[in-house]
């Protein structure tokens, strides 16, 4: 009476469409409905639009000084003018492209470099790990701003040097976070299974382990972006950072912050600072939104 019925092959009820598609659709729906993700995308989207549009769409030419002097926000200049009579609104909008040219690239360089070093240190325990950690720790002992000043004075300041210097300075910090995440992953069985297939170290690190440590890397990237802008602003304040007359947000603040002493002329500093804050918050909202949905 027994019929050879293989359970797995002949399921009773028709199984639902492939598991992965439903899950992916559900995650997407969930993502689109989470407020943090939406607001974050809107903010970052706005600034990316202006980074691309640049000064072509701004109400005034960001470098045009025709207004002549410091005007209070008025209908002519919605956000007022700066000490050289340039329209603050146009400079803040156009400034997005300049700010995007330095801080994010520095962050990417730092995160990229940090990830590679972190992976190597985390995977190759023993002497390699000890050595790398030693170097990381000694670089971290140096204050970021001092290394940047020394490096920029040596190489000469330009956007490229800024990106390289801040990127290099961030690498050890990112490397430490990535190393910690890799240490947790390297002892899991799928790494041993990969080595049992005869996979070599680079494959195991970059194809097997890296995708699984993307979570902490994304978080570190958003934190580093905030600190990159912070570092550019500090260096610009000292005269090493972005070159005038660029409408870069940090430079705008560095040029006009002394005006605040008089208690008036607040608009020349408030709006670029708000621009920086909204960008950082936007990026972090997106990261939080992503994490909430993926970590469930």
């Amino acid at each position, binding site marked *: 009476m027994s019929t050879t019925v293989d359970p797995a092959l002949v399921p009773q009820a028709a199984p639902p469409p492939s598991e992965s598609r439903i899950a992916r659709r559900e995650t997407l729906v969930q993502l689109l409905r989470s407020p943090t993700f939406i607001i974050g995308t809107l903010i970052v989207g706005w600034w990316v639009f202006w980074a691309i549009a640049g000064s072509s769409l701004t109400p005034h030419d960001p470098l045009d000084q025709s207004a002549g002097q410091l005007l209070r926000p008025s209908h002519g200049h919605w956000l007022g003018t700066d000490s050289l009579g340039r329209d603050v609104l146009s400079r803040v909008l156009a400034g997005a492209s300049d700010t995007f040219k330095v801080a994010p690239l520095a962050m990417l360089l730092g995160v990229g470099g940090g990830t590679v070093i972190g992976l190597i240190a985390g995977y190759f325990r023993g002497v390699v790990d000890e050595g790398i950690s030693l*170097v990381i720790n*000694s670089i971290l*002992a140096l*204050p970021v*701003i001092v290394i940047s000043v020394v490096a920029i004075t*040596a190489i000469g300041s330009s956007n490229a040097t800024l990106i390289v210097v801040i990127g290099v300075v961030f690498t050890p910090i990112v490397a430490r976070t990535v190393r910690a995440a890799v240490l947790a992953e390297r002892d899991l069985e799928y790494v041993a299974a990969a080595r049992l297939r005869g996979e070599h170290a680079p494959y195991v690190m970059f194809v097997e382990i890296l995708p699984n440590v993307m979570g902490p890397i994304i978080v570190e990237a958003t934190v580093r972006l905030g600190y990159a802008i*912070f570092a550019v602003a500090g260096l610009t304040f000292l005269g090493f950072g972005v070159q005038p007359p660029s409408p870069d947000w940090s430079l705008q603040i560095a040029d006009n*912050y002394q005006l605040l002493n008089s208690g008036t002329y607040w608009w020349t500093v408030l709006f670029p600072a708000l621009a920086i804050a909204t960008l950082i918050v936007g990026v972090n909202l997106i990261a939080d939104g992503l994490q909430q949905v993926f970590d469930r």
Partner: protein
Amino acid sequence: MAGLLRRRAAARPLPRRTNIARFLLKRFALALVTLFLLSVIVFAAAQLLPGNVGRNVLGPFASQQDVDTYNKLHGLDKPMLSQYWGWISHFVRGDLGKSLQYDVSVGSLLGPALGNSLKLAALAFVLVVPISILGGTIAALRRGRVTDRAITITGLSLTSIPEFVTAIVLIVVFGVALKWLPVNATAPPGAGFFTQIKFLLLPSFALVAVLFGYIARITRASVIEAVDADYTRTAYLKGLGPRQVLGKHVLRNSLLPTIAVVATQTGYLIGGLLVIEKLFNYNGIGQRIYTAAENKDFTLLQSGVLIVGLVYLAATLIADLLYSLLNPRIRFAGAE
């Protein structure tokens, strides 16, 4: 069933005390090697600076051979290695040499500057750590709700705003307009402890704004991890109320990561406050190092950065010690 036959289960031997000693010895040795590495990096970086020290000090009108004799006098023409050895061998013996720029002993410049920086860093530390832990814990306990969002976003925005903006706003509001707090951080000489604190308050608030976001975020993550842990469930199921669970079980474990992250900020808190020192006209070691870098004052620059490195390593050692004291897993590395 009468009481079962009592059988003795052999208990484990008590762990040895040498664990902490060996752990710290290893960290100390590591710190020394890091220090050596740091001195090499700093020396190399200083050599990178363009320009000629003699010309810089003697000014544009000095003749070329005056400049050369000056350089020879200060041994700036000797090969790299002997210069490095000359410097580090004296540094270790506490003789930091003379500043090329001011022609005064480096120690007399760095000593008070380091003292000031430590004072400011200490006050900032005392303010920012409790506030961040409080903020992070509240955000974690109200996870997902409005307070959590508010704390996280304010923290984030403050961290990304450049230091000198927060500094100037504080100066204008509290210093100039309301006149509650002094605008410059250097208390008149001989001022008492509390007046010095009063003078250091404004810069410390600026530092709190910078560091709050970062530390609160770490605390929030570790508190959430502790709240979701099984031992918190055991605590609740013992009948403990939320406050007791938080105080006795959650906070103790969530403090560990915060300590580690705060130690990493020492490099910034001691040597990196250049911008804030400039704005509050405070003679800290950050500004000393910066002027030394700007004017190619090798001896001052190298010793300054190395001292900051020393303080950083000391702080990380203390953090390690604290971490191992609080975390029994490291203190008693387990018998089996």
